[in-house]
């Protein structure tokens, strides 16, 4: 079942990327489903799975571009790991705090992505930051929280991520 869920996630990322490619130059506002997926995996499954999923999804999404596939994979991995660590350490159960973490994580990802992958001059970055990166980040983090809520509601069996973490901590203690 877990394998099927992973295959479904990767398939949905690929299908979204095939239908809505990132493009060069990238569009002003884009729903970055692949970034949202990485952040959600990090949030739900912790830093270890988040980093692995981030690397895999980042690599897949940038596979057609040999010059940037490494940066895409690395940034995806860092994003998944960071969201997972924050979730684990900060016990993010409230939607607002989840949204804040998503926003910070995705903003960091987008800024580094803009610098490392998209290139351009510092003047372009300063212009892109308020006009493109910030709106896209807000949209994606909001979308991510909404999908996360729906995902949590759809899960009927098994403890939540917080319950798992608490159980681990209690075992360790």
């Amino acid at each position: 079942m877990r394998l099927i869920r992973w295959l479904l996630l990767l398939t949905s990322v690929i299908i979204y990327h095939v239908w809505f490619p990132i493009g060069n130059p990238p569009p002003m506002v884009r729903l970055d489903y692949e970034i949202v997926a990485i952040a959600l995996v990090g949030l739900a499954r912790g830093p270890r799975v988040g980093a692995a999923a981030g690397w895999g999804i980042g690599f897949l999404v940038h596979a057609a571009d040999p010059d940037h596939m490494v940066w895409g994979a690395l940034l995806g991995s860092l994003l998944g790991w960071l969201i997972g660590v924050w979730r684990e350490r900060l016990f993010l159960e409230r939607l607002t705090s989840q949204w804040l973490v998503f926003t910070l994580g995705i903003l960091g990802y987008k800024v580094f992505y803009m610098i490392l992958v998209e290139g351009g001059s510092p003047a372009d970055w300063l212009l892109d930051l308020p006009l493109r990166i910030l709106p896209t980040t807000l949209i994606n983090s909001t979308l991510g929280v909404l999908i996360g809520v729906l995902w949590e509601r759809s899960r009927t069996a098994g403890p939540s991520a917080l319950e798992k973490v608490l159980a681990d901590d209690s075992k360790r203690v």
Partner: protein
Amino acid sequence: MWRRLFWWTTERPTVLPWAIFFSILLLILGDGFRRQLSELTVDYIYAPFYDMKYRIAASARVFDENRELRRQIAELSLENQRMRESTIENLQLRSLLGLARPWRGQVTSAEVVSPISPASGVMWIEVAAGRYVQSGWPVVTEHGLVGKVVEVRGNLARVRTLWDRLSRVAAYDQRSRVTGIISWESGPDLSLTYIQHQADIQAGDTVISSGWGEVFPKGLRVGTVDSVAVRPGEPFLHVSIAAVVEPGLLEHVFVIEPLASIEQDSLPGGLLQ
């Protein structure tokens, strides 16, 4: 606090160092390796999805094309009914006036096996087994006149097209009925020759075969008038004709077997103007 937020985790083994290691490894292995990896990923993972996207997009187009074709069929059916009525009326009037009946022909399809030669303007066609053609029979497409059969060898036939320097077709302007002779000019262009200076002929006029000479039937579309020019010292106008048939794109043609005279309900659809 920073260490707590960014480094220490409860889960072991940590994947991030491995992710960084693989990323650095990909960088070290070089551009060629990454390119091969990229090609493999695209070929084996993305290709089925791109294929699916293409098929879905094509299916969406099929619906639109189907709708458009249905509309065209409805229009053509109405036009066909009007044409049949006109034909019957025309035949009755011709009968009253004692004029000869228009031509009718049986159409045989053929495949172009050797395209038009740029040197001579001839091509070879192959008719289906069991069908035959004869020298002198006109060759057309659904758009208009192509040429005539000049040689037959079994199922193969040599066609002298309009783009042969020896080809001549008696034709006239459909609007003004000004007559002339169609001959090859240059490249895909033809010319309508022997047109007097004062003749009423304009760019955009349709030129059709006149049936004179009894080689080509009357009423086959040949082309449209592309330009009309007066050249100093020449007694006739220079009328350039853009052929309705694209000579470089011929794949299938039809050979017309001339029969006696037309019956009231047997007009070959689309060939007559």
